[in-house]
């Protein structure tokens, strides 16, 4: 139960940051927190021995995959942020909004 509370709380914190921060880097960091909470949930569930996967070790493998994804995401995301910063001289998301309805 405490595992769920911690991971949901962590996910909500990350989500709050991703939705409210105006700086691209901060948003990326918040997304990392959300991915971390997902990883934590998977690992926690595996340690508790809850049979959620089709076979032994599938849950841990999924957790590893999320970590890899998070690393890749951070790399691509930061590269994009640098590119955006070079081109637009800003990393503030509200100043970057070009498409308006």
């Amino acid at each position, binding site marked *: 139960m405490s595992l769920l509370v911690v991971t949901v709380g962590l996910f909500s914190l990350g989500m709050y940051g*991703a939705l409210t921060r105006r700086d691209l880097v901060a948003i990326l960091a918040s997304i990392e927190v959300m991915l971390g909470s997902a990883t934590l949930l998977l690992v926690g569930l595996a340690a508790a021995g809850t049979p959620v996967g089709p076979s032994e070790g599938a849950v841990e493998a999924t957790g590893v995959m999320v970590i890899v994804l998070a690393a890749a995401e951070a790399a691509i995301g930061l590269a994009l942020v640098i590119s955006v910063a070079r081109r637009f001289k800003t990393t503030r*998301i509200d100043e970057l*909004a070009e*498409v*308006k*309805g």
Partner: protein
Amino acid sequence: MSVLLDYGWSVVLIPLVLSVPVAVFGRALGRFMPVLAIFGPLWVLVYGIYALADDSAASSRAGSVEWLTVADAGGLSVGWAVDGLTAVMLVVVGVVAALVVMFSAGYMAGEQGLPRYYAALCLFTAAMSMLVVADGLLGLFIGWELVGACSYLLIGFWFTRPAAAKAAVKAFLTTRVGDVGLLLALALLWREVGDLSYAAVFAAAPALPASVVTAASLLLLVGAIGKSAQFPLQIWLPDAMEGPTPVSALIHAATMVAAGVFLIARAWPLFSLSSDALAVTLAVGGITAIGAAAAALVQTDIKRVLAYSTISQLGFMFAALGAGAWGAAMFHLVTHAAFKALLFLGSGSVIHESGSQELGQMGGLLRKMPITGVTWLIGAGALAGLPPLSGFFSKDEVLHDVAGVAPAWAAVLFGASLLTAFYIARTTRLAFFDSYRGSVHPHEGAWNMRVPLIILAAFAATLGFAATFLANSIGAHHGALDLAVAVGSTALALVGLAAGWIVAGRAHHDLAQTRWPGLVALMRSGWGADAFVERVVLTPVNATSRVLYSGADRRVIDAFVEGTASAARRMGRGLASLQSGDTQWYATMLGAGAVALLALVSYVGRGL
């Protein structure tokens, strides 16, 4: 002979096809355009003469050829059939149309849009022939509507003149009121008989219930009243005089307006079964004959005199029909076609030369235009009913037959004859005698305007002697000359002529001046029929339309249509404001949506 007669459809097809090259190549043909156009009427005339010659025994040529089957269920088909009545009408149409085309070559020379004019004349000839040779009411109705359309086109020939455009619309709409009656008659007969060919309808007519026969006859009468400008649908014909004068002679004197008389004569085996319809026809004819003759007394426009005269003479024919004497009606139709076409073309000649339609601008033209003047005098004499001109014989036959059935209406018609003599004497003196009051120098028109006048004058003078031949051809009864009626009507005609002559001699300085200005204004306006229609029909209809427009149309139908559009627009604008370009707002919505979906799934899942 009969080889030619097997091609009855050609009287429709040849003028119809001819109208195409006339319309397309008319400009290139130049003054040869009338030469091409006249072949349509000439063919109708040749065919009519052959049919008449072949048909002297009045044997109806049985067996019509189906030429177009519209729907075979029940035999709704359009065919043609030629008998004596058809042949007589074809000759009338052919002669008058050919002479009118010839006259137009002189009268209309130099006008703009002549290809349109001659093409419409050809088309009219085709439509009128179709009306005549149709073997059933359906074919007649098609021709009936087409002559109405051609009438519209030709009244509005000078469509840049607002009066002409309005007159064309008025003629079209007023006759349309009658056409609705005719269409209803067709629908009723179709329901009761299941076939609209004359043969089937007439065969079934005696077995039909009396109410159906009366209703169908009265509806046919409504159609005839509209087309023949009878009371109460007479208002369009005086205004139709806005069209070129040769058109007035052809359509609004000799042929199309006589179609109502032809319709009833054609439908006689059905129509004569209803004594109520006959009584109504007699009353309509009597009222029209005297009312229009009185209105003709005070007109100052020569063409309007003739228009009211035409309405009045058609009233005589209707009265004859109502008295059961369809042979007399057809006889009067034929003689009237000759002398009224003559009078109209004579008036056209006068208008062409004096440049005015006002009687006040004429006078003394007999000496300046002797051929027009003399032929006019023959036509006027025939109209007044002077022996031995054609109108004398046909009018006397009408008067005699009506007197035998309804003496009261005969008295009315005698009164109308008196007025007829009066107004034509007045018009004749104002136009052709005394001294010239206009400001130009009129002289006789070109040969192609004189020749039609002479030919028509010959007909107007002599057709009265063809009464027996005509009656035999159409298979009607022809009574011997009634001496009492003949003497009486001649005496009345002489009295009327003398009175008209004297009145015209006194009043020619200023036609507008009169001792009874109110009465004369009322009569000049055709007994206020236009004002009456304006007040009783047009104003309420316009008011209703306005209410319906602002109430029903604008607020309900348009509101619905425009409301749909504006609702979509407003919804789009509202939704567009959500799409701010703010990525985090999108993400928030995404998150909220996911949470909502989760909540929904878990709620539904619990419910299950």
